[in-house]
């Protein structure tokens, strides 16, 4: 045992150390210290500003964020920064905290994050800001005190209203509807749902009977749609203000007897919804261009890092090819208005 243990200990130590050295010294083969393997930031740039910006979406494997973060990547390569994307597999608040902590350790220049919860990641973000990192939220906000800027895709009122308008039109302004949302804590969906409930006051014959959560997971959203149809046999419409949810719901509806009888609308990406619009499961849905959202967020972060803006109301900055933007109330920048997709125009869009 004596020789065995010592030999084994040494061999194992060597093996593990080799692994560490190999990965720690960077996948690109650079010598230890300067840059880590692709996917992390941390270069002490020769320039004054640290333009290493990392995107932290709600979760990975989400086509909406794939598109938006690609927009961010495009922007970052335009102004010569360093792009990275990290995120949890599960859209839960505590999972994001670990990634924020790591980014703080790595001393990136800016974090662009879509929050899974308004408050839970606040402490971690504050620590990052104390270390000099700029924090910008996009898509889903935190409490304003934890971030430098919020890049919103459209006004929350506008997003809520367009969805209520669409469902009212599709079910003849009367009947039972349900909401299939993402995760129960998501700031953006919750804000929209609140406003949707207010907007429903203008439609007295429509009744909201249930709100279920698919957690931005395809299988869960699929199963929850089935459960909704089971539990509410008189359901006339479903609103899914989440691109993962509406795609899963569309897939379930298009193979079930409820197709055409239960209306489905919400926020979805053209690529995922094309099939269901063409086969009649979905008449109309809305979104904005997530690519532009990520693009704008990256430019906003850059402006903060270089000191071009402070993030307060009235600041102006240029976002590459999108033009000039002004910071509004609550340190928020709004991208634009939601856009409706239907059979007539869906083929024009490729995201």
């Amino acid at each position, binding site marked *: 045992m004596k020789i065995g*243990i010592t030999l084994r200990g040494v061999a*194992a*130590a060597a093996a*593990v150390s080799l692994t560490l050295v190999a990965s*720690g010294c960077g996948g690109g083969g650079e010598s230890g210290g300067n840059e880590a393997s*692709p996917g992390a930031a941390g270069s002490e740039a020769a320039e004054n500003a640290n333009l290493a910006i990392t995107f932290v979406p709600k979760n990975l494997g989400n086509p909406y964020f794939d598109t938006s973060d690609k927009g961010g990547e495009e922007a970052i390569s335009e102004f010569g920064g360093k792009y990275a994307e990290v995120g949890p597999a599960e859209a839960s*608040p*505590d999972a994001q905290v670990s990634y924020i902590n790591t980014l703080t350790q790595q001393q990136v220049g800016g974090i662009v994050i879509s929050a899974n919860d308004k408050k839970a990641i606040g402490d971690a973000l504050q620590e990052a800001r104390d270390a000099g990192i700029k924090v910008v939220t996009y898509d889903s906000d935190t409490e304003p005190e934890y971030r430098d800027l919020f890049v919103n895709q459209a006004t929350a009122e506008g997003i809520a209203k367009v969805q209520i308008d669409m469902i009212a039109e599709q079910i003849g302004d009367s009947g039972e509807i349900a909401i299939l949302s993402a995760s129960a804590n998501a700031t953006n969906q919750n804000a929209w749902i609140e406003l949707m409930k207010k907007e429903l006051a203008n439609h007295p014959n429509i009744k909201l009977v249930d709100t279920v959560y698919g957690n931005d997971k395809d299988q869960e959203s699929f199963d929850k749609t089935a459960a909704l149809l089971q539990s509410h046999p008189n359901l006339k419409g479903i609103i899914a203000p989440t691109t993962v949810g509406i795609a899963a719901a569309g897939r379930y509806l298009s193979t079930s007897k409820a197709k055409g009888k239960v209306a489905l609308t919400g926020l979805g990406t053209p690529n995922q919804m094309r099939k269901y619009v063409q086969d009649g499961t979905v008449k109309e849905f809305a979104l904005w261009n997530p690519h532009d959202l990520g693009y704008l967020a990256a430019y906003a972060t850059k402006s903060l890092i270089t000191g071009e803006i402070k993030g307060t109301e009235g600041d102006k900055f240029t976002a590459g090819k999108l033009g000039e933007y002004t910071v509004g109330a609550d340190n928020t920048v709004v991208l634009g208005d939601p856009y409706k997709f239907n059979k007539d125009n869906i083929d024009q869009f490729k995201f």
Partner: protein
Amino acid sequence: MASLTAPAEATTEAARSYLDHGAPLWRRVLLTREMAIIALLLAVIIVASAALPRFATPVTLGFLLLDVMPILLIALPMTCVIITGEIDLSVGSMVGLSSVLFGIMHQTGLSIPLAALIAVLAGIVGGAINGILVTAVGLPSLAVTIGTLALFRGLAVGLLGTTAITDFPRYWTQLAKAKIGDTGIPQVMIIFVLLVIIFAILLHFTTFGRGIYAIGLSPEAAHFSGIKVGRTKLILFILTGTIAALAGVYYTLRFGSSRGDNATGMELQVIAAVLLGGVSIFGGRGALHGVIAGVLLIGVLASALRLAGVTADVINIITGVLLILSVVTSSVLSWVQRRRARPRALSQGGSSAS
């Protein structure tokens, strides 16, 4: 006896290794499984500090210890449980349940310490459920704790759904993360050190602790030597539940979020670390310093790899492979030991080494 172990029971005795009391003290202390892990830990720390400039900083140390704290806490009683030959798979779910109860109690207006107390009480009850089912009803701990894993997690998710309670007073969430001066070491480590001392005394300096080892080596023999096997196991399960609940309170305050699915899968991380630290799954063997080194090893590896930009999945692969390697090599080693012992035994006229 160990009912869920290798198919051929004949080899389980041989797979254990006994302290060779004939060897000098330095050999007994240094050339052990635990020391190998500690050496490995030190080696990894040195390499990581050299390869990653941001690694050996108070900031990194702080985050590392904060991350690994719940596992450190739960690994202490889990070590004792595994040494007796049982297992407790429900600890992760207990962390989640305690987190949920803590959050709900606080939301209904109770102060933080009071809410924490209720969460810990739940841990005691949960541990008692496990213990009673294993000792009084006589069920195998693997099956029982798979059941309570589902039950506790189910209660946690049932009570809160997928909402998270995130409204906790700044004072307490900051306290959970507060560091000692400039060293970067979190203040909660003080609690941990206290617990380590308690458990070390319990395990190595009391008859209760001797009893734990005896039960792991042979429950029947322990029973006939007068050790109260049932009561010991019951106490250990209750301890595990309590500390898991405590870890749940810490987890909630550290992440600022009380959610039904908090700490899903944590039980596997604890068991992996404990086994890595040299505790034998067959029972009867193991020590705390090895376990602590095992937890820290996984923590340091994960932290260093994350800092280097390696993604979480690679860390999981490494954890899984390390776990398998550690158990397989100890099995192979004892096989080698047996082979070498046989001719020695024959020439010495059949001495004990099996």
